[in-house]
């Protein structure tokens, strides 16, 4: 904001007053906190007025390779697109497409390895919008990031541990509010992608 005032020739004409006002406002914004929340959010909380940002998972991947196996950096690069697609599918099923609650949870549960599906179905509130899905009309993603460690077999990924963070805004009839997900997912590589073999997950409003 200050930078813009300094470089905009029209605003420069307003002189000292505008610069001072801007500086004081900026000072008020940054020093008036103290709530520990890190300042006011630029994330919109109301509304349909703000267009939805497409879901895009920012993924950082590292690979553990066997002796004589592929180069670790190349392996990480090779594993990343598939993992990113999988996490995108997970967040889409858990949040974006879950809004309205009409689609059910089969698509989300299908992303889990069979031996953990019953447990996942019982804990949807910790993995997704859960029981609140019916009250939510839309979910607008604002941040989706993940850090993955991938274990390689001979030439292909065999398993991965992913730390996933998702923040977004959910619209309801009463207004809008934030939704959060923080998960550690243990993934098993299958012939056609990945499955969640174990999870440790939190959702809701962080304290």
């Amino acid at each position, binding site marked *: 904001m200050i930078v813009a005032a300094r470089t905009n020739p029209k605003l420069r004409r307003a002189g000292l007053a505008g610069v001072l006002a801007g500086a004081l406002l900026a000072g008020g914004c940054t020093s008036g906190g103290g709530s520990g929340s890190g300042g006011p959010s630029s*994330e919109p909380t109301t509304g349909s007025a703000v267009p939805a940002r497409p879901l895009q998972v920012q993924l950082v991947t590292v690979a553990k390779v066997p002796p004589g196996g592929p180069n670790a950096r190349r392996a990480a690069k090779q594993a990343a697109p598939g993992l990113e697609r999988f996490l995108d599918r997970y967040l889409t099923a858990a949040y974006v497409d879950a809004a309205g609650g009409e689609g059910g949870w089969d698509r989300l549960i299908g992303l889990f390895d069979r031996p953990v599906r019953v447990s996942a179905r019982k804990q949807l509130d910790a993995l997704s919008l859960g029981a609140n899905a019916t009250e939510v009309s839309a979910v607008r993603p604002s941040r989706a990031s993940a850090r993955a460690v991938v274990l390689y077999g001979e030439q292909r990924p065999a398993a991965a541990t992913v730390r996933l963070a998702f923040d977004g805004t959910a619209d*309801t009839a009463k207004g809008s509010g934030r939704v959060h997900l923080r998960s550690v997912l243990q993934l098993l590589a299958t012939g056609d992608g990945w499955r969640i073999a174990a999870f440790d997950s939190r959702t809701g409003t962080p304290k």
Partner: protein
Amino acid sequence: MTRRSDQGGGPVRRSLLWVVTLGLVAALAAGLVVATSPRQPATAQDTPAVTVQRAHAGSGTPALKGRLVLLTIGSDSGAPKFGRGGTAESGRADALQLVIIDTAKRRGSIVSFPRDSYVPIPGHGTNKINAAMAFGGPPLLVATFEQLTGLTIDYYALTSFDGLTDIVNKVGKVQVNVDMNLRDHFAGAFLDKGRRNLSGAQALAYARARKTLPGGDFDRSRHQGQLLLGGLGTYQRQVAEDPTKVLSWLGIIRDEVKTDLPFPELLRLALVATDIPVSGIINIPVPAVAGSAGGASVVRLLPGAYALFGRLRAGKLS
């Protein structure tokens, strides 16, 4: 005012002063409002945020059906670092534990067998159990155990001296409850009783020490079981601190252990293992007594051993 105005020197300068003054007042007021207001996100419509979802936490590990029986084998061969040639599979099986996990109840038992147990080996008469692997590799050893116990062995896991020491060194020591003071020059075991973090060399020495122990082979078998339990406890502590350690351990096992466990099952088992309390696993030396056969010292299983096998077949864990 007039004087000041006069001294001010004209309307242009006066209006500039007004602009500055107004700007300052407005800015101070705005700053004050921002500084004293409760924090609210800047929005186009001033609607307060609602709580969409209260905090929820949950975790899940695989629910594997039924019981899993795993034979863990320590070979005396295939360890170049210890001057032992050949392959681990073609050596004698000097450390033998049946690990039985009730995956639903999250409990289990480790049944330790003395290597000199004198038992029938399919197609090879009666001999020391450790010879079975030298005769026919892990498959014959598994068949020997199945015939002896009546249990179906689902999988085996085999390592060597090199493998054991490498595993322990790579995971960064294992914590073991050493149950006696050890001064065994033969195995190089010099350990005091108590909870100890063992290096690879110390872990191997603890697993091998026999000659100076009051119970000889029986004590050694029990120690080998304790080492497995120590490994489980160490694994659980590391994973609780850093979930990516599951993969670190799996990577080390991949490099140091030969097994017929398919990788998906190995991963699921590793995830289940995070959830099984060490105290829920019983370390049972198989009831046996020292004896001799054809001039060689052997270990003969007692009737209690067969009673134990019967209980295990019936689904019990001890």
